[in-house]
């Protein structure tokens, strides 16, 4: 079988970071150089770049990047947490920004962010969980709002938020697990909805959800590993959505993260709920020093 071309993928990502507007590297540079975070807004939230309005998406990214580098203490944690908590609506849902777009993605982002900052106490967790459960469908999956079609990406968000808040007992894991394992197609890859094409990114969304509900052994893991490895560009590095397509940083990340969840040798373990390395999560959530 083809092996993981780890060195090539590292080179691929480094080359991408040089040629593109890499948000993370810009952010990190500002932290190192100025000791403050240039993208942080007065409200406590983060924008996608200097001068951009704050959004919960970029706020979680900022917290995750800082968590990776053990630099969360450069933040005014209280202020960031207040910004995120302020986006919770009366029904328990979360908006992405002051303009009010609601989506279960934002529920996950808020809960993940606040857990990393040790400030889940700032929101009404019970209402947040109830809202997520109101987006559960008869097939066991979750959509973006109540009645929205089940989609593996939304399922990751909902299951992740339920896992972080200790609420997984409130879902039918067997029903959801069957829906998730039906996402594996003959090639071994996973799709995100019935009759859609397989895509490496679902190695993350589907697998992480299956792991969180203890049902990952229901799929054929070997075939999935092979599918991911077949999506590599062995010569130039990088991983694509499907074999022989063009590679990008997004699918390279999800391919490697998927292999990590599949315990591929040599890849560091990743936490399925926080999408951060297990040692980082242990340090932050459990206070275990590496």
């Amino acid at each position, binding site marked *: 079988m083809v092996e993981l071309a780890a060195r090539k993928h590292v080179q691929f990502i480094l080359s991408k970071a040089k040629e593109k507007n*890499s948000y993370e590297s810009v952010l990190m540079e*500002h932290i190192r150089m100025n000791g403050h975070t240039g993208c942080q807004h007065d409200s406590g939230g983060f924008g996608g770049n200097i001068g951009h309005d704050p959004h919960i998406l970029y706020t979680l990214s900022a917290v995750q990047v800082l968590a990776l580098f053990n630099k969360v203490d450069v933040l005014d944690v209280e202020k960031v947490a207040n910004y995120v908590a302020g986006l919770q609506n009366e029904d328990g849902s979360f908006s992405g920004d002051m303009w009010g*777009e609601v989506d279960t993605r934002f529920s996950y982002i808020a809960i993940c962010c606040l857990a990393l900052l040790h400030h889940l106490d700032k929101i009404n967790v019970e209402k947040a969980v109830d809202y997520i459960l109101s987006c559960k469908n008869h097939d066991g999956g979750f959509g973006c709002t109540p009645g929205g*079609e089940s989609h593996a990406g939304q399922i990751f968000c909902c299951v992740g938020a339920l896992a972080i808040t200790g609420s997984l007992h409130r879902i039918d894991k067997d029903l959801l697990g069957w829906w998730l394992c039906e996402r*594996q197609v003959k090639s071994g890859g996973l799709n995100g909805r019935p009759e859609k094409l397989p895509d490496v990114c679902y190695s993350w969304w589907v697998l992480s959800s299956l792991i969180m509900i203890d049902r990952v052994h229901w799929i*054929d893991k070997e075939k999935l590993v092979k599918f991911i490895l077949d999506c590599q560009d062995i010569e130039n590095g990088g991983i694509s959505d499907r074999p022989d397509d063009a590679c990008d940083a997004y699918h390279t990340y999800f391919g490697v993260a998927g292999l990590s969840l599949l315990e591929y040798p040599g890849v560091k373990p990743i936490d399925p709920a926080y999408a951060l390395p297990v040692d980082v999560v242990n340090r932050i959530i459990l206070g275990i020093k590496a």
Partner: protein
Amino acid sequence: MGSDEEEQWVPLRNRPELSDVIPVQQNDGPNPVVPIAYKEEFRETMDYFRALYKADERSPRALRLTSEAIELNPGNYTVWHFRRLILEALNDDLQNELGLTENIAQGNSKNYQLWHHRRWVAEKLGTSATSEELRFTKKILSIDAKHYHAWSHRQWVLQALGGWEEELDYCHQLLEEDIFNNSAWNQRYFVITRSPFLGGLKDMRESEVCYTHNAIVARPENESSWRYLRGLYKDDNLSWVNNPQISSLCLEILTAKANCVFALSTLLDLISHGFQPSQEFRDAVNALQTSDSEQTDSDVAKTACSVLESIDPLRANYWKWYRSKHFENA
């Protein structure tokens, strides 16, 4: 708006209406790690945008500038935000916004900002926007019938503004085009459970079972139609088990001996909820055994699990688990 986009682009510094504006350049920090190579047109537009945004100038010229900035980069949500602030201040005709978002959708209909903007506009326009929003989403769905943003927007329109009357027909039309379209099945479920005109799940169940029966017979390998059928009995296992239409549908598919995964799993589901299979079911399931399935078991459920393990090998562990959980409680 939009009509002048085909005219030749005039650099902003040469436009009389902007002569008093001092452009503000992007601050990438003293030593940008990754200097971004912007196109001149984009750079200049954003420099002028930044100037007006910083001055919080909510004027017609600022509104025009946001259109240009959005067309150059529809992903910049700050520009969209500012546009809404200007629209509110000027009390401008919101019909223009529908044209703008439709233009953007032609380039990339999966842009989150355009849908969010569209909803903001429709919310302000109220029920007068209903038919236009249903038409717009229909147009997007005619290109990609599983477009998640379009479905999400359409569900919001129905709930916030109405327009339910023809939605079930629309679902039917889409399922005629592609019976495997899970989004259309989901919308159908959304309509029968939430439409104020249909009386809810229980009232719709009988006719929906017939509809789904036909869909399943036509394509028994369709995961979506089987799940829809099960969904019709959400929280009502007793009716699920006791409706002979369900078990006879399973038997019909099993007897045809092709694409039996969902028929077998539905039979197992029925049995696990108390259904007592007759000899006909035993015969049909036994007839499905292949040379590599385990030997015939007197228990039809266990035999069904063995058949599934061999015809659905990707999920063999699931079917093994299913057998041990439901049928090996000795």
